[in-house]
């Protein structure tokens, strides 16, 4: 059987005309971060935090653009970005629900929460609902063990969760338009 070789030169994905690294982002990073470090490379994490915040995920095209912008190779960017759990390479829903799977939460029933979300919304950790509203993740300790089990909905911490109540709370989350701190502009 012949090796299947992917042609790296062909356009590997739909390229969008509009750049992910907008002039505003570039300006922010150039002014705020570049002067602080001896290399542009050092601004990689802050840059991708901005991209995550802006788009909710990191598109491949953004990695290319970042490589040019930071004056390093695409491989170097890919190497770093793929290492960190919080940098997601696929789009997330409007709400990212991070359920803590740490020891205290584990002892207090984190599995019930995941199971409930699975039955109500039909998603497993790492998946997004069909209406693109909720993406579920399991994360390491959120440092709120006294409130176990706990979860973050976007940046808000919710503690002492009961599976049924939490599912209702998720169902009642307002739709995208009124979601104050969602990403994706």
């Amino acid at each position, binding site marked *: 059987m012949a090796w299947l070789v992917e042609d790296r030169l062909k356009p590997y994905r739909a390229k969008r005309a509009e750049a992910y690294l907008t002039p505003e982002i570039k300006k922010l990073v150039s002014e705020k971060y570049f002067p602080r470090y001896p*290399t542009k490379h050092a601004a990689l994490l*802050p840059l991708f935090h901005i991209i995550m915040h802006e788009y909710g995920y990191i598109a491949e095209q953004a990695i290319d653009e970042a490589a040019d912008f930071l004056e390093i190779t695409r491989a170097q960017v890919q190497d770093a970005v793929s290492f960190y759990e919080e940098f997601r390479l696929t789009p997330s829903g409007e709400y990212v629900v991070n359920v803590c799977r740490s020891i*205290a939460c584990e002892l207090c029933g984190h599995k019930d929460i995941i199971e409930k979300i699975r039955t109500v919304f039909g998603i497993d950790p790492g998946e997004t609902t069909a209406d693109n509203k909720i993406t579920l993740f399991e994360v390491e300790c959120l440092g*709120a063990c006294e*409130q176990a089990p706990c979860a973050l909905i976007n940046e*808000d911490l919710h503690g002492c969760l009961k599976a049924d109540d939490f599912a209702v709370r998720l169902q009642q989350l307002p739709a995208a338009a009124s979601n104050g701190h969602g990403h994706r502009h």
Partner: protein
Amino acid sequence: MKPEDLASLADKQRAINAACKHRIGVCTESGCVSSQSDQIAAKFNELVKSRGLQKDVRVVGVGCMGLCGNGPMVKIDDGAPMYQNVTPEHCAAILDGLDSPLGNPQLRHLLCDLNQPFFRRQKLVVRSNSGLIDPEDINDCIAHGAYESLLKVLTELSPTDVINQITLSGLRGRGGAGFPTGLKWSTVAKAGGPSKFVICNGDEGDPGAFMDRSVMEGDPHRVIEGMAIAAYAVGADHGVIYVRAEYPLAVKRLTRAINQAMRHELLGNSLFGTRFNFNIEIRLGAGAFVCGEETALIASVEGNRGVPRPRPPYPANSGLYGCPTLINNVETYATIAPIIREGAAWFAAIGTAKSKGTKIFALTGAVQNTGLIEVPMGISLRDIVFDLGGGVPAGRTFKAIQTGGPSGGCICGQNLDIPLDYESLAAIGSIMGSGGMIVMDDTSNMVDVARFFMEFCMSESCGKCVPCRVGTWQIHHLLDRIYKGHGAPEDLVLLKELCEMVKATSLCGLGQSAPNPVLSTLRNFESDYLALIEKGRADREAALSGPHDSGTTVPLEVIS
């Protein structure tokens, strides 16, 4: 800011605080906020306004008061009375009882007994202002003594004096390993180079630990002050606080604190009119536990994968961008200002011969009182669990206490009377760690606990060195097999061998300490392992000798 401005600013704010008859402190740390403490603060403000009490009553958001399990907490004036489990409906009654020093008698069920061992046996050094000050208001912090130690250091002490003080205090790193802080500082101070860095490690990732989060949220200026003193002592002018992105509130509070400190010229150039310059920036982690390891953290700040590298060279000689770099934990920096203010001898008088001072622990799991405690080193685990913690809930019995998270071990009842210090914990196969303490009762199976921690280490292993990458996977596989009843007695020998190998040959602390939960449970709770193996064997035998139509399927590949 000029040196004399700090005192006048403090006096001014104290006068403002004193002019107000009552101060209602509502806990605004992550835990209490998630149980709607922000709504309680809003309700108080609304009531104060509608009753026309604005002149006499001030509502402030304060840091953690410790008893997080009973939150939201509300503290009146400087600490008494204190209410627990408050809801917005209680606010009116609390206001009614403001003038009574014992609180509103109708709310007796909410009054927190401040004389209980949980509070009485604590010794607050790092957390002395937590729950008192408004962490979002630098003036309030200054009124409570913030930046006084920095002023003293910059105007009265030489860098060598500072390092001598820290060395004499006997302070050891609070991140877990317990390296003498004074020695680390003097190494960085002696290292040459055009620039040096000071890094604060706030990448607190141990399951069950949240001390650093609380310190960053409840008293961020104390961390900043400690870093500035450290920078002066070692000759650095740039600081980095590396915080987990999972702690959004800590990031917000620190950012705010840094901005306020810059506006007050407590960060920036020529602090207090001296030649000392110091700036701090916050860097966010991105969900990688291994970045708590110092060389991995540095790699991450430089914009790379957060993987550790072999030491030496130590960061003290070659750290961030190859420059000498001082890395300490959040709690270590937060201990500096009190040491400078009260003196090294005062600090050294607390604790044991080799472990000085106090340590914050996050007490969770099967105990009555869960939350944060700051206790003198040398206190016994028994006192923590049964006195401060109030013992395990009724109807259950104590089985083990886990310290040090995935790098620590499970301690059994027989060892509860050892003094809590770095050496004693190491001697029984655990570690001080960053301060997580999880109490387990008789319903917890130790094999399951070991398996949980190994799964964590396996998924957080960065993959750079083979013993950790492959070893943790193999150990987890074995534990899983035993837990599911497919194990054999020989597996325990193999497990132990594997653990010793991973411990001895891994590159960094993550791998070197990952086997601790397994080794300590093997030593102290071997019966749990043997019971599972025996049960599995009995089940298989019963299935084989029983009627074939029983429907039980026996996995036969199990003992491989």
